[in-house]
């Protein structure tokens, strides 16, 4: 059994990674323990409001790299610990059995060398799948500069893998993460994408990263603008086929003249997640949302901002507008749009109907008519102010942490 202090150190060093999703895998329990739940599952919530889904832990925090923003970096004085593959497997299975977790998110600092570290990660997940017969969710972090053969081997056993971009440009990487560069991250990402496509094409039995790849970027540690970040995001979705890009507000944990001393505002991260959502689920292109050298507006969400720039499309009639257009109405999310489509088949919808169906009208009312009736503000100039005021004070919270179906609907409902 792993020592409590080891668990403490390895958890504390892993906790700033924002991805914790357990979705996307339909792995079945074939005579052991565990299976995948395609929608993911939250098992607990911590007082910071984040969901606990996976056992998120490092194999080791004893790093030979020296990324400036990281607590595990070589030149930083912090207690070090490493766990064995057996310890991790045992911990995973015993937590899983008690329904504490949905699976394992195993990452590591670069301990001894990239190959050694990757080997340890691969050994652990292999052991878990074979000796322990564990079929629950496993997310493995890829170690930059490890042997491509190890990368392929890992993907046979893991449900999801991620190489973290961390910084949105080569220049910032050079400055802040001297042992990494864009190539060391993109090359394995593309390798995995290629191999996954081939695997799927051959319709072979078994698995190869059923839940795909994700990545994470730190926002606010370096000078890139939202426009630049979101262009990278869109290309990661389109060209590298990533399932998800996470954004993490920069939090100063170490002092360094190259790093800002202030926490990056949560609202910026929130806006990036909203824009990301629009790219993935609402049919927007990044060019519609923000120019490359600008940030997203903070006063209103990116969909509102788009609508205000494109008033020629509005108001739309809820009884006739096609789904794509309903989805572009500020405040109408996927769920509300579906409800409207379904209900209007039977009757002509009024504002009263919409209210009862719990379609949030605070923002939407300025952009729709129901049965020809308009309930919004006629003076277009004041709409922006009203929309900004309609933002709930609660909102600029960690959407990064929202990765459950419930959370997703909460988000889509509001967007």
């Amino acid at each position, binding site marked *: *059994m792993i020592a409590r202090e080891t668990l403490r150190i390895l958890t504390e060093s892993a906790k700033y990674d924002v991805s914790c999703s357990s979705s996307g895998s339909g792995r079945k329990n074939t005579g052991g323990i565990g299976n995948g739940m395609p929608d993911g599952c*939250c098992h*607990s919530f*911590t007082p910071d409001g984040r969901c*606990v889904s996976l056992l998120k832990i490092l194999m080791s925090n004893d790093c030979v790299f020296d990324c400036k923003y990281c607590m595990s970096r070589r030149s930083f004085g912090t207690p070090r610990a490493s766990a064995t593959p057996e310890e991790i497997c045992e911990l995973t299975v015993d937590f899983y059995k*008690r*329904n504490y977790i949905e699976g394992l998110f195993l990452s590591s600092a670069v301990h001894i060398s990239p190959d050694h570290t990757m080997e340890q990660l691969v050994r652990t997940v292999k052991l878990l799948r074979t000796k322990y017969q564990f079929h629950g969710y496993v997310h493995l972090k890829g170690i930059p500069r490890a042997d491509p053969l190890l990368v392929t081997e890992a993907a046979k056993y893991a449900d999801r893998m991620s190489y973290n971009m961390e910084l949105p440009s080569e220049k910032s990487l050079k400055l802040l993460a001297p042992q990494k560069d864009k190539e060391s991250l993109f090359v394995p990402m593309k390798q995995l994408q290629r191999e996954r496509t081939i695997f799927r094409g051959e319709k072979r039995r078994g698995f190869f990263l059923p839940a795909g790849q994700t990545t994470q970027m730190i926002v606010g540690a370096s000078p890139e603008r939202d426009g630049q970040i979101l262009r990278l995001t869109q290309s990661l979705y389109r060209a590298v086929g990533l399932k998800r890009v996470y954004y993490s507000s920069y939090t100063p944990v170490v002092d360094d003249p190259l790093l800002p001393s202030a926490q990056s505002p949560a609202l910026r991260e929130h806006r990036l997640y909203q824009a990301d959502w629009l790219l993935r689920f609402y049919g927007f292109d990044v060019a519609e949302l923000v120019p490359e050298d600008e940030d997203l507006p903070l006063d209103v969400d990116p969909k509102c901002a788009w609508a205000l720039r494109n008033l020629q499309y509005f108001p739309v009639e809820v009884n006739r507008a096609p789904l794509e257009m309903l989805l572009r109405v500020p405040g109408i999310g996927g769920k509300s749009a579906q409800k409207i489509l379904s209900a209007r088949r039977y*009757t002509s919808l009024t504002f009263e109907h919409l209210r009862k169906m719990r379609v949030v009208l605070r923002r939407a009312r300025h952009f729709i008519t129901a049965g020809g009736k308009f309930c919004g503000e006629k003076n277009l100039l004041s709409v922006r102010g009203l929309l900004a005021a309609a933002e709930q004070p609660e909102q600029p919270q*960690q959407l990064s942490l929202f990765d459950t179906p*419930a959370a997703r609907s909460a988000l889509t409902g509001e967007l």
Partner: protein
Amino acid sequence: MIYFFDGSKDAFLTAFLLAYRDQNAVLTAGNRQLVLGQESVFVSADHERARRCERRFTELDARCMHDLSLLLRSGEDGRGQIALNYFRKIAERGRPVRGEMAEDAVREASECIRRVTLEAHRLKGFVRFMESASGALYAPLAPDNDVCDLLIPHFRARLGNIPFVLHDVRRGKAAVWDGTHAFKAPLTEAEILLSADEDKWQALWRQYYASVNIPSRKRIRQMKGYMPVRYWKFMPENPSAAAGDLPMQRAAPPAEQDGALHPHGSSRPLPPPPGR
């Protein structure tokens, strides 16, 4: 007229046949009370009539009996009335009405069903098992809705051969998977001999939960929004202490429930070996 029924499907269908033409009918599975100035009747199940009614409804809407089973699991007093109004609408239209969200009766039923399935969904995450000396798993829970047995297929699929008991301490019943069969059984008090390492795994879990939190961000409202406080009681990570709340007071519980579970108390009257 007020129609009381016992909450079962057949009693509901029997009551439905009596009540559906009466626009002022109130149908309730709540406690029978004297309501001044209103006549009331207790309807007990007539299985034959219920079968006929069920067949007819299934012809109109193949999925409506599934809806009914979920509605009747609701812990809300209004469930009988919500179901009555919904089924009345199906009878009126002579077809499924599920999509007609602009209709009060349909929307209320759909929201009620959603509350039931949402709780079942949440519990897939929030249930906490403890391991008994025999290796079987035991989880106490007190759900708002009668959903324990809905969880069996989920845990059965992932736990494979491990037997488990989901004990609804509020309703005094359990949903059991004994390794070969799934069944429901009345269960008030439970006594379990825990496995040798159970305490240590719970302690490691508490350590993990404490370490993975980022103390500089305090979002207790969000935490409580996603994981309502009523589920905290049986969680060994003790979210209440972590959130800085006062330790939860147990409102003097009825004796049989008190016996059931102190999942992380020091002196523990323990739940029974899983089994019948």
